[in-house]
């Protein structure tokens, strides 16, 4: 794990989860929309990331993006750009920032922020239509974000 200059501060705010140190959603440090420091020191699992990207109940990235590598998953959306070649167009840090909170790089982006817990208008309890309660958390966990990033960097043209 790469520790930047603010490591002392960041480390103090890190929470322990499943034995891995994670960066809390409110402590993620963005530089021009990119996030250099992995959100967990457990390392990303690209094969699990591939599952998350295509799974409706997890990342559901293909609701809006075409991913040719997931050709077996039907009904890929056309809202955002295809993710083919994303690993060549963007650095790992940029991909991490875009997945965690794309609005930091692209102001006003329609893309949901997958690792953010505040600033919402009428946040709900998942898809129940009810108000958020004390269980409210980011859409994806730190580990899931890292898995997705690990997968996206493999998408080369």
């Amino acid at each position, binding site marked *: 794990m790469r520790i930047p200059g603010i490591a002392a501060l960041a480390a103090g705010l890190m929470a322990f989860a499943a034995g891995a140190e994670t960066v809390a959603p409110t402590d993620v440090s963005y530089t021009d929309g990119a996030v250099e420091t992995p959100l967990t020191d457990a390392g990303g699992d690209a094969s699990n990331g591939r599952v998350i990207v295509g799974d409706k109940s997890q990342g559901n990235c293909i609701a809006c993006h*075409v991913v040719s590598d997931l050709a077996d998953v039907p009904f890929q959306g056309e809202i955002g750009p295809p993710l083919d070649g994303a690993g060549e167009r963007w650095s790992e840090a940029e991909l991490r920032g875009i997945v965690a909170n794309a609005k930091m790089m692209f102001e006003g982006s329609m893309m949901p922020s997958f690792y953010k817990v505040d600033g919402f208008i009428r946040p709900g309890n998942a898809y129940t239509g009810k108000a958020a309660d004390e269980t409210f958390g980011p859409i994806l966990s730190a580990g899931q974000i890292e898995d997705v990033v690990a997968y996206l960097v493999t998408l080369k043209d």
Partner: protein
Amino acid sequence: MNGLAWMFGAVSLVGAGAVALADPVEDTLVLNGETEIVTRTAAPEHLDGVFDEVISGWLYREDETRVMQADDFDNPGMIFAELARDAWSVAEGSEGKSCADCHGEPEDMAEVRPHYPKWNEEAGEVRTLEMQINACREDQMGAEPWKYNGGDMVNMTALLSSVSRGLPVSVAIDGPAQSTWEQGKEMYYTRYGQLELACANCHEDNNGRMIRADHLSQGHINGFPTYRLKNTKLNAVQDRFKGCVRDTRAETFAPGSPEFVALELYVASRGNGLSVEGPSVRN
């Protein structure tokens, strides 16, 4: 990544073809071979800079779905309108009156649906058709109000829409309705919920595109209530709003709430000029 998989992926991904499929189709809707429905028309003035043309959701649906709506014997929504036609002449409440006693035939109500939601001077509020129906039941019939989006109510709105089919949606957005309309407009552009999605994100900025298996339309409500093949029932417009806001991972609003009344007025006004289509058929 497996090189062969990549090649197959590239072949199966025909971007241009997918986009062409997702555009609204060119087609004309004539009900029962006689009633012409306007499914495309010049956008109302208040949408200057947003749309040149407003397009009915009918043109975004599949061939077989569109065909079902063209004939009342094929349109499952008409079964529910017919149930309401039976209820129309049944006396209820302390006054012993039916709808028919004051209003005559349902067909005599053709000029009603196109103008709702509508400002009610006496009540000092914008009323949806549902609110007006319940006001009638309580004040004129001395009957219990129906549940806002209950079966009886949705059926009755289907009947009242069905007799207005072919007439242009024409809701007033100025005068005393204006502040409610402005409230609805603000909601339309508010990015609700954990997914931070506004109505406009999908229906203004991305209509014609696919979001997963859903083909995004301009989101007009001239076809409500709508028989959806997805849930095989007649769906009230504010139930649809409720589901849409819920799907942004938000705390949604209740059907009949002041917020959804305002939103309904605003969304209806975006479709001013399109024909009333309810009960329509959608997927």
